[in-house]
């Protein structure tokens, strides 16, 4: 960086009066950050170097704000997976329940049909008693 010595001393005078703009102060900082500043301005160099160092000071153990956002993002994802799985499970359960109901219904109908059949069968059985009578009569006759 090329800096004219007269220009710098003019800037420094303005600086002392509090008349420099931020841009001009930037120029001064740049001038003093390189090691080849004029030794005449040694005292100013100390000041500007101090400003540089001070500006870089950081506070230890800062408050962090970004982690929270990402964790809530993952919680959202986890929650939606839970809801979807829950929905699927419930649908499955409901479907099973329907099938069970149908099977129970079918079982009942079949049972009724079988009962009906066996009742009718029993009715028929009464008539078969006569066959027994017939056979004893026959035995009497044939002996």
């Amino acid at each position, binding site marked *: 960086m090329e800096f004219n010595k007269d220009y710098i001393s003019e800037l420094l005078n303005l600086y002392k*009066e509090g008349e420099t703009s931020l841009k001009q102060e930037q120029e001064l900082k740049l001038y003093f950050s390189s090691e080849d500043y004029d030794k005449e301005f040694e005292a100013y160099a100390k*000041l500007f*170097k101090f400003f540089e*160092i*001070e500006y870089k000071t950081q506070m230890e153990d800062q*408050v962090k*704000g970004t982690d929270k956002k990402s964790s809530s993002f993952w919680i959202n994802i986890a929650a939606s997976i839970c809801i979807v799985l829950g929905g699927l499970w419930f649908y499955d359960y409901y479907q099973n329940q329907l099938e069970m109901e149908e099977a129970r219904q079918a079982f009942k109908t079949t049972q009724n049909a079988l009962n009906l059949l066996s009742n009718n069968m029993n009715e028929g059985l009464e008539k078969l008693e006569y066959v027994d009578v017939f056979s004893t009569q026959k035995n009497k006759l044939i002996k």
Partner: protein
Amino acid sequence: MASEIYSRQILPLQDKIFRFSRRLLSSEVAAKDATQDVLLKLWKLRKQLRDIKNIEAYTMTITKNLCYDLLKSKHSRTLEFVHNNYTKPGSCLDSEIEARDEASIVLKLINELPEQQRAIIQLRDIEQFSNQEIEEIMGLNSTSVRVALSRARKKIMNELKKTSAYGIQ
């Protein structure tokens, strides 16, 4: 939404708040506490942050007010912050070496300035706020800012020139 503005715009200012309050309170520990307080205060105000044009200057205003309150309450209780970070009790050799360190000379000079000039030097020369912003933060008009700045700079430079003159001999 409001908390997003907070973490995006306020949290990166922590170092600035810390440096400014350290300059005003002259104590690292007190400055840390003050920084936490400022962050907390802004967190409570997070819903209003959207309406503030210059959040950085606003933050600095809050920091300044808080530090001034702290200083006032310390004064009224006739207690002073101990400058334990700058004058470490130790061997004479240590403090001599420290005093020779250029940065610590400047630091000492700045800390000897009156409160207001210290604040203005910090805001202008270290944090590089514009004069308008400093007027807003400090509640001063443009002339007083310029005058205070010029006085502070002249005083530091005079002292620095003296010490460096001794150094050459």
